[in-house]
């Protein structure tokens, strides 16, 4: 089964994303901060990560930077979760090699669609 890691400090968001993606047939794990996300990925590299940018402690961008610097996770598909008007963060995220972004508040259906789209793009590439 395709596995997805959701990283967000807001448990409500995690719950919803997890529910929606599980309904769409993904295996979903979650992490509530950057450190935990790094550990989860170290333990087992998922097929895709949904990464919140603004988190307490390490920011999502830092997490992404570390993944990109590491051979095993260099190509890990990442979709950023960001708040509205954080254009700088989005830009920086794309520079770091993020695949797509979803703006919060988000539409669950659109989120699921983007996850599928990124995954199929990666497969065909």
């Amino acid at each position, binding site marked *: 089964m395709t596995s997805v890691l959701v990283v967000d400090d807001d448990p409500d968001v995690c719950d*919803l994303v997890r529910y929606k993606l599980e309904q769409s047939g993904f295996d979903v794990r979650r992490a509530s901060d950057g450190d935990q996300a790094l550990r989860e990925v170290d333990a087992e590299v998922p097929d895709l990560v949904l990464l919140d940018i603004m988190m307490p402690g390490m920011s999502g961008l830092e997490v992404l930077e570390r993944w990109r610097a590491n051979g095993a996770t260099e190509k890990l598909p990442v979709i950023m979760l960001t708040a509205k008007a954080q254009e700088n963060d989005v830009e920086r995220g794309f520079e770091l090699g993020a695949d797509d972004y979803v703006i919060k*508040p*988000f539409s669950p259906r659109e989120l699921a669609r983007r996850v599928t789209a990124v995954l199929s793009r990666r497969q065909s590439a």
Partner: protein
Amino acid sequence: MPSFITVRFLLAVIIIGAAVALALLLLVVISRTARFLLGRRRARVESQVRPAMLQAIAGEGVDAELVHARGGRGRAVDRLAFAYLARVRGEGHDLLADLLEQRGVVSRVIRRSAWPGPNWRAAAASMLGLIASTEADQRLQEMALGDSSTRVRIVAARGLGKAGTSEAADTLLSLLGPVDLVPEGIVASALLELGPEAVPALRQTLRSGPGGVGSGQPGPQAGSGPQAGNGHRRGVPGQQLDGRRRAMAADVLGLLDVMPAWEDLVRCVQGSELLVRISAVRALGRLGVPQAADAIIRCLAPGEDGALRSAAARALGRIGSPHSVGPLTACLGDPDYWVAHNAAAALAMLGHAGRQALARTAAVNAPGAPHAREALVGARLLVSESVREVPVPSQSGGTP
């Protein structure tokens, strides 16, 4: 010694004091326990309701249980529904708003929005903002215009920003008057939040100006930097009020990326009200309109206000027109720190020609040399940065 100081009096004072303190402590112990028990119960009930709620938001059908839940369960449903209203949009949001409508929560909140306590009314306004239905929007407009408490009006105005109707935009703009019903900053961010719906009203406001008649008054701290508070005095009549509104409209249009407004904005730059000119220059910079470069370059003239000149320098950097290299270079040695600083930063953004101009100024010991060097070093940092991340063809011209 005064006669009232008897041992009994003293004892009484001390005992009463101690008793009050103890009673308060006891109260805290009770409220703490209650808080804990209540919190635990809430969490339990919420975890029971949550699966049905997630299912509803994900668009897989609304459980009848959610609609009919009452008591503690009902409150848990409402709490979760509001929590998720703030987190989702699109279909999920509409489903939640419908659910609350069916549960009778919307009409309850509307009733609450007329209660005597301002905190209740503010809470109701923020809920209405989340619900964002036509009915809620209607009530929010009334509240923003008519509530007696500023705090409530602020919350209502912010709610209108989420409502997303063009009517809300008109209401928001009318909140600014001789005496602002809601602070200007709140109105501006609400308009921004409204997005495309606000554009017609904003463009209307921008065009409504006196156009070249009369003179704008500089703000209280004009000239104190590129982003120094763009606030303007309150309680100013007629012309100035109009200028204030138009300045805000210009700023918001820029932030909303409304390209079609550029000609109106250029006209504002050529106008005479300082505040409007500054905001229009800023907006054109954000939009990056090359056709506006000449009008903005004229704002760099030494006779112009410092705040306008520094805003113009900054905007020219964003527009990136090659014409601006000369005028910006001339500003490098300006006595106004912000003009020189922004000019240097702008030149660094103007590609090869801009960097060469900086390098030339930095090489000779001209007055603008420190600014030029600062900008060059900063630019080099950024370049090396992007080289590291995305392979860019080398040749980062200009840097010595």
